[in-house]
């Protein structure tokens, strides 16, 4: 069963990573001072993380990604069965219904571009 293999390799890689990080931490010199533990921000006094303002574009990109991703996922079963449908004579019906779906997809994409939701100035 492939699932057992997937779980096995995941756990194996995780253990490998833990072991190698632990082994690497055993060697090497340790000379610590307070400056070394500061965040590396080019020598300027460190700012708190919450002062950072981040563009809402990242959120918008992520949510549009989810929507288009779902639409693309729905094309996969269509893509595998398309030839079977053509063989059984229902090809035209499935072809048209997918074109309608794709037209909605294209309209959505076109609208996003038009509304400048995808502009990163």
């Amino acid at each position, binding site marked *: 069963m492939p699932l057992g293999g997937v779980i096995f390799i995941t756990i194996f890689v995780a253990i490998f990573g833990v072991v190698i990080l632990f082994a690497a931490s055993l060697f090497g010199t340790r000379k610590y001072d307070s400056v070394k533990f500061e965040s590396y921000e080019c020598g300027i006094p460190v700012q708190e993380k919450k002062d950072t303002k981040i563009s*809402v574009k990242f959120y918008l990109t992520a949510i549009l990604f989810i929507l288009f991703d779902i639409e693309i*996922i729905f094309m996969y079963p*269509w893509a*595998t*069965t398309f030839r079977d449908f053509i063989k059984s004579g229902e090809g035209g019906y499935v072809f048209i*219904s997918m074109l309608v779906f794709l037209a909605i997809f294209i309209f*959505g994409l076109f609208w*996003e571009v038009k509304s400048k939701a995808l502009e990163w100035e």
Partner: protein
Amino acid sequence: MTADVFLFWFLAIVTLAGGLTTIMITNPIYSALSLAFTMVGVSALFVTLNAYFLAGVQLIVYAGAVTVLFVMVLMMFDLKHEVTAFTRGKISGMVKSGIVAVLAGILVGSISLTTDIFSKSGAAPEAVIGGDTTKELGKVLFSKYIFGFEALGILLLMVAIGAVALARSKGGTHAKQ
């Protein structure tokens, strides 16, 4: 105990642990990450049911897209200092548990009303075991449920328009102070 049964119990326990961590832990980032872990566990449970395509969709859409959005948004807003108000309190905890129980009851009830999954004595139908369910899924999707499929496209379009409108409603394209 056969390997399949062991695998099921292992995955079920791991998934439930992930789900419990999601609602018990106070740090929102860890909560979102354990939600992602739960999604991966649910996808593995789909694999044990031979629903390979569904497992892939579960991973791509829920673990790879929706929860990534959660994690990204939580990282944008530093919520580290607002963890206590939402997860403490005896009365509110009881109310929450009650709501969860009602929701679970509605869910189980509706499933048992619409399907005969509880009346059958366990054994899955022959077609499901060991077969490739993806092509069957495609065939059902494009014959029986074609209207729902097209309606889904329109729903997703509306959500996209709504999301853009929300993100732009305050004027400008950047988060205000």
